[in-house]
């Protein structure tokens, strides 16, 4: 395989479908060649509800990307999200009879052992992500291969979701005669380009607020400790505005983008926002404090839910997080960082894809973090694993879903 590879990341979002075509260079730098995009229809809260429409939208987005980059797209890496996804941490253990050297098969066996947990019948495993190895109680062994021991243990972060819903995404892409390299949890993809290695080691919470879902991921000591998906996002803010101020959805969306702010209404400048007449809308005067109250309450609630979820998923975990990184389309909302700071009481930064090059206006936009992250994830996975075992991995992961097509 050549050192320079083309990777394609596809995110079927609630608001838009984006296809990022990127080139991974020998120095690991990701260079974006272009982006194909269509507004999304038939997706609600990150999940496909209308197969035919979505398939059509994906086709348009792929064609758009091919047009712009002059790359023929054959295989894609797909991001997946939705409230059906759940995660937990589990430790696998393997007794090594007679204190022998640890072999590659042992590492595989311990992973299988960690997955021997009952997940709900309709669910399937999506990721089994290694956190740390322990050999004979010796904590956090970085590479146990060839070291000697009697007991090998490994901690994993395991993500699972409803099989049929994951299949829907795959079927929609396969019907376009496009191959799927792998399915990746959205937040895991975003984190690849949004967080630096230092931040992962130091303890970071990444929150990707999109249109239909909010995906989050906690890194501590360089490993993923928690992940979650809330079926809440920018669409909810728009809907709240529409209900609260009695505006049509489209007008509420515009008002959110132009004037919306998540800051505490107590410090609002106040006043009136005048909405002009247009052919389908009779103008009106909107009270700014009301608008900010609606947005503030919703945004604060989202952060509070995330905080409570992290608090309940691991004792003391929240105290190990040193910084919050917010990305996703909705992170462009004014004042959102202050609200997060208020809720988490640690430094908050608005962020976007880093360490990538190419067309700047693309990677500087936080709404592409996930799609760009997919290409980086692809680079990391393919670099570390020989092509043959990659196929094995896919076969293990989701059965015979992936029929490899020629690259």
């Amino acid at each position, binding site marked *: 395989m050549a050192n320079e590879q083309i990777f394609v990341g596809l995110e079927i979002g609630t608001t838009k479908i984006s296809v990022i075509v990127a080139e991974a260079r020998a120095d690991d730098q990701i260079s974006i060649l272009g982006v194909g995009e269509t507004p999304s229809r038939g997706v609600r809260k990150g999940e496909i509800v209308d197969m035919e429409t979505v398939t059509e939208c994906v086709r348009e987005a792929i064609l758009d990307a091919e047009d712009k980059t002059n790359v023929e797209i054959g295989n894609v890496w797909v991001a997946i999200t939705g409230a059906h996804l759940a995660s937990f941490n589990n430790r696998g253990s393997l007794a090594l009879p007679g204190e022998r050297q640890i072999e590659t098969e042992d590492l595989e066996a311990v992973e299988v052992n960690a997955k021997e947990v009952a997940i709900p019948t309709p669910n399937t495993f999506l990721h089994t992500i290694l956190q740390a190895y322990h050999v004979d109680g010796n904590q956090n062994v970085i590479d146990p291969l060839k070291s000697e021991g009697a007991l090998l243990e490994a901690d994993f972060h395991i993500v699972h979701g409803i099989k049929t819903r994951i299949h829907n995404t795959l079927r929609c892409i396969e019907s376009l005669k496009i191959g799927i390299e792998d399915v990746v949890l959205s937040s895991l993809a975003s984190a690849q380009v949004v967080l630096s290695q230092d931040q992962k080691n130091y303890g970071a919470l990444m929150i990707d607020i999109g249109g239909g879902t909010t995906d989050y991921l906690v890194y501590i000591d360089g490993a993923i400790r928690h992940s979650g998906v809330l079926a809440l996002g920018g*669409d909810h803010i728009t809907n709240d505005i529409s209900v609260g101020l*009695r505006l049509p959805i489209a007008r509420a969306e515009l008002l959110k983008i132009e004037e919306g702010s998540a800051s505490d209404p107590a410090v609002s400048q106040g006043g009136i926002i005048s909405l002009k007449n247009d052919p389908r809308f009779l103008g009106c005067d909107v009270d700014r404090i009301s608008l900010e109250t609606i947005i503030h309450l919703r945004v604060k609630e989202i952060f509070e839910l995330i905080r409570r979820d992290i608090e309940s998923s691991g004792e003391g975990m929240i105290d190990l997080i040193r910084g919050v990184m917010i990305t996703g389309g909705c992170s462009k909302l004014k004042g959102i960082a202050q609200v997060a700071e208020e809720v988490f009481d640690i430094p908050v930064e608005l962020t976007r894809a880093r360490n990538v090059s190419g067309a700047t206006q693309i990677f500087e936009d936080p709404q592409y973090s996930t799609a760009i992250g997919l290409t980086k994830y692809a680079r990391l996975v393919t670099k570390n694993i020989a092509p043959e075992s990659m196929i094995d991995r896919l076969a293990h992961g989701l059965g015979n879903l992936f029929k490899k097509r020629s690259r």
Partner: protein
Amino acid sequence: MSTSPSRRILVGVGNAGVTVLDLLSVECPGMTGLLAVNNDRDSLNASIVREKIEVPEGDPGEGFRVIDEEFGRTVEGASAVILCGGLGGETGSFLLTALAIRAKSAGLTTMACVGMPFSFEGKHKRDLAERSLEKLQEICDAVLVIGNDQLSGGSPSISAVGEAFVLSDRTLLAALLALTGMLSTSGPVKITRADIHNVLGKPGVLTHFGFGKAEGSNRLHESLERALKSPLLTIPGKGAALKESAIILLLLRGAKDISFAEVQAVVGKIEQIAGDNCQIKVGVHADGPLGSPLELYLLASSGGTIRKPAKPSESNETAETNSSNGAISSNSSISRTGTIGTIGTKLPQSTGGYEKPPEHSEGEKGTGELFPDQTKPASKFGKKAATASKQMQGTLALDTYQRGRFDKSEPTIVEGEDLDVPTFLRKGIKLNTPTRK
């Protein structure tokens, strides 16, 4: 034990039964008529229930012969005996049936409230439980069954085993409270034993049970929503279980200020979901101190050989209103026209239980439609509710206007709240509505 004619005795059998009685004594400190029966001395000693009968260890049949007489004396003169415990274990399965036969042969109304084992407890236990349940249903006047497996269907599968049992005990407790609560609705109108027998008394029926508890200004809606979300209320793949039921027993228990409007609203809502062929029997226990939470219990069944509901003639009796303390203890059978049977004259005024939100017009409209006007054609709403419940497995669809564009999408429910409803509405924040030009 002294027995007065109207006394009912709750018998906790086996470890599960004793645990549930302990929980009950903590929840309702003044409750009398509790009896713990077990062959585990440690469990009995640790129990805070006052009356205990220790069954000698070893063969349960032998053990039962030893305690037979003592048990007979204890329950003598009671108006009803409610047995409670987990099926599947040797002790519980045998003793529950044996005690039921004993109580029944003494001519007492005998009911049972039992938990079926989790499937991870093994096939042996499951088979034993099923055989015992069959027997119990033959003997008892009513059997309320809690399927532990159904319970865990609602919670993450990776929850700890210990938690699963705690949940199962808590649910048994709620079921026991529901049964005793329904039995003790006093006054000329109540949920009668015949009603309970009609719902739970036939062999092979599938129990549907839901309960919810809430306080504050939106207590009615919240408790109903929780009750409808109960995993024991749904038939997998068939939508809301209530639709399958011929009779639904509804018990409301709470503060003195439970209002007529609240009872009417909740009955209306259940009618929407349950459809046309269903009879709702209501019992109200409004004797708690002001501010105490509202508890709502739903009990229904399907399958088996259910009799068609008896003519609702007895339900036309008037409800009793205790005007001196403002408490109502009423009960009524509701016909499909949506009217509640005649209820006494002095009804307490609605005191904030089911309040309309502040004058903000969206909120007002929203809540108004949540419990729609009974004069609207019932069929239309019945149909709508039916589809909604199919999609969402028995959860209550909030008003269209409140959910806005998320009306038809799968609801985002976290920590028991429907988060598709705008945050400001749920928190009751008042906004200035825009002025049109």
